[in-house]
C-alpha cells in the first residue's frame, strides 16, 4: 500500500500484476479490496470480471465484465483501506485519523504505541506517517482480533512498519521495553485512565498522547488522570460535512413587455413562449448543498503533552 519499495509506487508505467491488492470501485460508497489472482473472477451485480483481464492494465483503469458492466481498479491507500476493511470493531474514520496524526506530531521516524488495535483502521495511517524508518507497535487484548489485524497488515504490505502485540494495556500497561522510547501514544480503550500512567512512562520528553473516547464521562476521568503528568490537555470533536453537487436546470420567466431587450440574453427560447406575454428562459447552474445525513458523533479526542520537568 505504501511506497516502501519505490519500484512498486504508482506511476504511468506501473501495471497491475498477479498478487497485487486492488481496490475495486463500483461507486463512492461501494468498494472492495481484491487480491489479483490469475485464475480468479470477481462476481457482482454488474457481472463476472476475470482477474486475468486486469493484469497488465494500469491502476485507475476501467474494466468490463462479461455483461459489459464496469468497475475501476484503484491502487490502495490508507483512506481507501478504511472504507473497505472488515469491521471487527467500531473504527476511526478519516477526519479523526487525520487530526490524530497531525496533532500527535507524527513524522517519519517516530515510534508510536497504539491500543487497542481494533480493526486496524488508524494503524495504517500511523504506519504511513512513520514510514520508512519509524515503527507502530499496536496492542489488543483480543487474540483473534490481534491475529486478524496481523493478517491484514501482511496483506497490505505494512508488516515491516506495524507490529501487533496481544496484551491487555488497561490491565498490564505497555511493555517495559518501550519506556522512554515512544514519540506518541494513542489510546482507544473503554477505561483509558487506567492506561495513562503507563503511557506517561513510555513517552519521550515532550511526547504526545491522544485518547479517543465516545463518551464524555470517559473524557472527564481521563482528563483528571492526565493532570498529574501532562500539560497542554485539550479535547476536540472533529466531524465532516459532505456536499452534493448538481447541475440544476432552472427557468426564469419575465413579462415580455419589452421584447427587444431580451435579444441580448444568451439563453435560447428552447421552450418557446407558452403565453402571449411571458417568455421562459431555461438556465442551468451548478449548485452545492450539504448532504442530508452525516455522522453526527464519532468520539472525543483528548490530546496532552508529557510535562517537561527540566
Amino acid at each position, binding site marked *: 500500500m*505504501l*511506497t*516502501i519499495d*519505490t519500484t512498486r*509506487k*504508482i*506511476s*504511468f*508505467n*506501473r501495471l497491475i500484476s498477479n498478487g497485487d491488492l486492488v481496490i475495486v*470501485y463500483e461507486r*463512492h460508497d461501494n468498494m472492495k479490496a481484491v487480491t489479483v489472482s490469475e485464475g480468479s473472477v470477481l462476481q457482482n451485480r454488474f457481472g463476472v470480471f476475470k482477474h486475468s483481464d486486469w493484469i497488465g492494465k*494500469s*491502476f*485507475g*483503469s*476501467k474494466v468490463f465484465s462479461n455483461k459489459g458492466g464496469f468497475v*475501476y481498479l484503484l491502487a490502495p491507500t*490508507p*483512506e481507501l483501506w478504511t472504507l473497505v476493511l472488515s469491521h471487527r470493531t467500531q473504527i476511526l474514520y*478519516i*477526519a479523526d485519523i*487525520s*487530526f490524530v496524526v*497531525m*496533532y500527535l*506530531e507524527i*513524522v*517519519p521516524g517516530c515510534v508510536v504505541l497504539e491500543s487497542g488495535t481494533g480493526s486496524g483502521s488508524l494503524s495504517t*495511517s500511523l504506519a*504511513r506517517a512513520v*514510514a*520508512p*524508518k519509524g515503527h507502530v507497535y499496536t496492542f489488543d487484548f483480543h487474540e483473534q482480533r490481534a491475529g486478524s489485524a496481523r493478517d491484514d497488515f501482511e496483506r497490505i504490505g505494512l508488516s515491516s512498519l506495524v507490529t501487533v502485540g496481544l496484551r491487555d494495556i488497561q490491565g498490564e500497561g505497555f511493555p517495559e521495553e518501550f519506556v522512554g522510547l515512544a514519540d506518541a501514544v494513542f489510546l482507544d480503550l473503554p477505561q483509558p485512565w487506567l492506561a495513562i500512567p503507563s503511557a506517561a512512562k513510555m513517552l519521550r*520528553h*515532550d511526547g504526545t498522547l491522544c485518547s479517543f473516547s465516545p463518551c*464524555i464521562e470517559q*473524557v472527564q476521568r481521563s*482528563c483528571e488522570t492526565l*493532570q498529574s503528568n501532562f*500539560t*497542554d*490537555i485539550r*479535547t*476536540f*470533536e*472533529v*466531524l*465532516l*460535512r*459532505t*456536499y452534493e*453537487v448538481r447541475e440544476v436546470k432552472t427557468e426564469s420567466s419575465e413579462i415580455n413587455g419589452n421584447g427587444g431587450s431580451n435579444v441580448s440574453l444568451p439563453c435560447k427560447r428552447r421552450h418557446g413562449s407558452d403565453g402571449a406575454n411571458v417568455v421562459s428562459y431555461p438556465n442551468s447552474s*451548478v449548485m*452545492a448543498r*450539504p448532504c442530508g445525513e452525516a455522522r453526527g458523533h464519532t468520539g472525543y479526542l*483528548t490530546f496532552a*503533552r*508529557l510535562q517537561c520537568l*527540566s
Partner: protein
Amino acid sequence: MSSTENINKSSSRITWEGCSVLLDINDGDRLVFARLSPAAKLKIGNKNCSLQPLIGCPFGTVFQLDTSDSDGPFLSPFQPKGDVNNTDEIKDGHFQAESKDDQPNSESKDNRSLIDNNTAQSLTGEDIEDMRRQGAKGNEIIEALIANSATFDKKTSFSQEKYRLKKQKKYAPRVLIRRPVARSICEAYFKKYPLKIGFLRVDTLSLLLSMANVSSNSDILVVDMVGGLLTGAVAERLGGTGFVCNSYLGQTPHSMDIVRIFNLSDEICKRIVRSSISDLLSPKESRPQNPKQDVGSVESQSIDQMSVSVSMEEASHSPENGISDIGAENTTFPALKAYKATKAGEKASQEILDSWKENGFSSLIIAAPDLDTWTVVRDLLPLLSNSAPFAIYHQYLQPLATCMHNLQLEKMAIGLQITEPWLREYQVLPSRTHPHMQMSAFGGYILSGTKICSS
C-alpha cells in the same frame, strides 16, 4: 554543521543555537516565531530580554521573566511543581482539577457584594515601581497585590485564580518553548494571522495531507499560495524522501517563507523544489532554450524571519493581550544571517522534471485561492499517475463545486467529494464540561478524488 548532525537536530527535542522556535507567551496571548542565538532579544512588555537562556533547553520548558536582578530582566526556567505560590496554576485558560469535595456548588461565596468602584486595590503604581527597584520578584509583587486587595478574600476560588493569573501575566510573564511543526505553525498563524495561510485550519490541513496520501517516497505536486505552510507540512511528512514540487503559474514562484520556520534538516530541504507550471506542462523532449530567470530559492526573494515574526506580532495586538498595553513589542534577530536555514525550493532539475513526465506525480494538493480552480486542475491532473489521489482546498464552495462538476463531465476522476471539516474544542473540568464559548466556525472546503485513466 554536517548534514548528519543536522538530521539529528531536526528531530531533536532540545533547542540549539540557530534553531527556530515558537515562543508561546502567557498561554497563547502572544505567539512569536524566533531563531535562537546569543544575541537574539525578545521584548516582553517594556523589557528586553536575551533568548540566550533558551539555547540547549528541552522543548516544552517554561521560562518566567525575572526582573529582580540589577543586571536587567532575564528569562529563568520556571518549575511548575516547585513554586508554592503557583502550584494551582491555570493551563490553557483552564483551572486545574480541584479536589472532589470542592465542587463549585459547594462554594458559599458569590459576587453579590463586589462593587466595581476601582478602590479595591490600595497599592499604587508607584508602590509597585518601588518594590521593583528594590529587586522584588514578580511573584512577590503578585502576593503584595493580593494582600492589598480589599476584595480578594470575597472572591470565589475561581475568580481568585483568575485574578492571580491576570496579575501573573502582567508581573511575571511566562514563555513556553514550542517545537515549530506543521501543527503548531498552522495553529499559530490561524490564530494570529489567518489571511497569510488562506484561513487554512489545522484539521483541514491534516485532511489535505491524508486525502493526498502524503507518504515517504512520494512525489507530491503542490500549488501553495498559503505562504509555504502546505509545502512545509508535506516536506515534514516526506521526511527527506520523495519530492514536493511547489509549482506556480507564470514567472514568479509563490512565497514560501513559512517553510523556514520548520526546523527542516538539509536532507528534507533538498526535497523541496520549485517549477513553473508551464515547465511541467511542456513536452519532455523540448528543453527550454533560454531558461527563464528563476526567481529562485526562498531566501533570495522572500521576507526574512524577522519580518515574519513582526507580522505575527502586529496581529497579536488584541485587547485581551495582557501586556501589549505596556508598550510596543518587538523581537530582533541581529545574528540572523549566521543561522540561515538551508535553502529549500531550488528549481527542479531537468532530470527530475523528465522523471515526473515519465512516471507522473503520486498526488496533487492545491491551496490557491487566487487561481481559477477548474483550469488549474484541468491542466495539472494529467501530470498525475493514474489512480493518484488529489485534494484541493478553497475558502469558497462554488469554485470547488464547478470543478467537481467539470471533472465528472470530463470523466477525469472518481470518488469525488466536497467536504467541510468542523472542529469543536471542549473545556473539560469537574462539573463544568462544555464546548468552548468561542469557536472557529469555518475551516475551508476540500474537493478530493482519484484520477482515473483517460479512456
